């Protein structure tokens, strides 16, 4: 029997980063209201960074989010480098790419194995896996460990990394240690290839047409060069913020964003939809059968896209490490000025934007940070609405709809810690 009237309320959705509640109201068989509330408390980083020393800023903003801390550090560094016109050596550029790859491998693996894979096997937890499934739990450890070690060797730590600074790295990695990572990266690659098949075979369908936005370029490296949209627009990093419109979501601790009046989706799915041709040649070769599925409007494929990005991160890391001949170099001295700079990078969950306004006394005047999950928030609500209506029309039970919604939200891999980091004063 079709549900005519129901209130779905999910408190504290599990297996995501941070805390979110979801409330859905259905009346006369129609979805009337969807409220996805990010419930992590604001920690007011935008206020706290005012007056801080420029040099400590990349470390301070790392604390916005544990799992994406490297993304915040690297984006903030890019903004400072642009503001202060800091030269970045070719060697530092390579190390920055390795830093991003270490992050992607570890962070994506956490999501596609520990958070999302139980949904594919219809289990509550990786801890409930049995039979052949248990191999995937073991595999998750090998893949995460490879990413963690890459970050640790290059950036000093996988969480709140101490080495990256404006212009380069305060400590250079040991070349031998770097080369020693190659066998572990290769092992992780073998493991990830297996889980790609699991996701590709799962026929879950969360399709809804939307706009996709991602940083793209000739090389798929999460750091540059320009923003592409699925409407074919190409935007410079400096101009990105001009295209965004803030949307107040009164019940959520985060504000949302629209892109020129449209809702949009960021993240691995967007990146593959818009830039799969730039993936590493080995990734394109070995993942060819999966890459045929993109571009896609099916949000469930975000999981598969993350897996393919792990393969790419491994392939390009191995190539960089094999070629890299490190020469000793110090990060350049910073020359402070009254100036502004923009940093845009691809965090695991999508495009991350920083603008920093700096002062010539070496302190921060203020800053603007726009995180991927804030930008995905409205799109998520619209997807939820569509799925609920579809399931209501099919006569699905309330409990089954609720589980379906959790799976949908997890496909986005939302990061609530990031989303609620700051406030806007003109918020009412």
């Amino acid at each position, binding site marked *: 029997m079709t549900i005519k009237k129901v209130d779905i309320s999910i408190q504290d959705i*599990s*297996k995501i980063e*941070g805390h979110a509640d979801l409330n859905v109201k259905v009346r006369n068989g129609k979805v009337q209201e969807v409220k996805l509330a990010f419930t992590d408390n604001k*920690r*007011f980083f935008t206020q706290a960074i005012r007056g801080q020393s420029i040099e400590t800023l990349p470390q301070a903003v790392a604390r916005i989010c544990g799992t994406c801390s490297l993304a915040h550090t690297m984006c903030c560094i890019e903004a400072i480098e642009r503001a202060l016109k800091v030269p970045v050596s070719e060697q530092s550029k390579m190390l920055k790419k390795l830093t991003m790859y270490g992050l992607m491998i570890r962070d994506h693996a956490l999501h596609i194995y520990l958070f999302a894979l139980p949904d594919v096997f219809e289990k509550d*937890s990786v801890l409930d896996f049995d039979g052949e499934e248990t191999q995937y739990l073991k595999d998750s450890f090998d893949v995460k460990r490879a990413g963690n070690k890459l970050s640790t060797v290059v950036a000093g730590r996988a*969480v709140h990394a101490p080495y990256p600074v404006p212009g380069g790295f305060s400590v250079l990695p040991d070349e031998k240690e770097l080369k020693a990572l190659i066998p572990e990266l290769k092992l992780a690659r073998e493991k990830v290839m297996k889980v790609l098949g699991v996701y590709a075979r799962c026929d879950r369908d969360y399709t809804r047409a939307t706009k996709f936005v991602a940083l793209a370029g000739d090389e798929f490296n999460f750091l540059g060069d320009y923003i592409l949209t699925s409407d074919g627009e190409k935007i410079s990093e400096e101009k990105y913020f001009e295209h965004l419109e803030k949307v107040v979501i009164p019940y959520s*601790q985060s504000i949302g964003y629209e892109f020129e009046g449209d809702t949009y989706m960021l993240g691995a799915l967007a990146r593959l939809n818009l830039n799969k041709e730039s993936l590493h040649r080995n990734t394109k070769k070995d993942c060819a059968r999966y890459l045929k599925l993109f571009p896609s409007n099916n949000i469930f494929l975000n999981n598969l896209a993350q897996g393919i990005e792990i393969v790419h991160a491994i392939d390009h890391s191995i190539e960089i490490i094999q070629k890299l001949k490190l020469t000793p170099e110090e990060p350049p001295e910073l020359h402070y000025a009254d100036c502004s700079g923009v940093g845009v990078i691809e965090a695991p969950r999508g495009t991350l934007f920083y603008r920093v306004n700096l002062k010539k006394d070496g302190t921060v005047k203020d800053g603007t940070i726009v995180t991927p999950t804030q930008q995905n928030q409205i799109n998520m609500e619209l997807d939820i609405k569509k799925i609920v209506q579809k399931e209501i029309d099919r006569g699905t039970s309330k409990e089954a709809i609720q589980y379906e919604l959790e799976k949908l939200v997890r496909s986005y891999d939302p990061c609530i810690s990031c989303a609620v980091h700051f406030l806007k*004063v003109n918020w009412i």
Partner: protein
Amino acid sequence: MVNLKKEVEGKKLRIGWFSFSCCEDSTIVFTELLNDYFEEWSKFIDFVYVRVLRGKNKLKDLDVAFVEGAIASEREKKKLFDIRKNCKKLVAVGSCACTGGPSAQRNTFPKELEKEIEFLLRKFHQTDRVHKLEDLVRVDAKVPGCPMSEEKFLEVLNQMLKEFGIK
């Protein structure tokens, strides 16, 4: 003093892992420790309430609750009291839980910033001040660090396994 030693052979340490206002960096370190320790831990530890690992979590009869983050709202306060009632030992994990900061950075905001954020504190029922855990409940052990120190965490965990007579 309560005798925590278990008499039943094969009994596991029932643990919970909770996150309040913070960046959840210690949760990430915990999930990374699983890479090397899961096999060993699964023999001694029952992951009863771990939101990053389970969908269905029950806050009941925990031996040890590991709590990350500072307390910044009435909702968090209530949950923390609930946790304290349902665990025998409570361990503060990471800088925000142990000292309040960096999540407690608003406690030291100058007047004009305090004014700027005031309406949001009201709107989301945040408390006037951000608290470290021991401001509100008894804390039995601490694992400091931003993120938590892995070595200290292992030390505290092993200590708990001993105290509960499991290992």
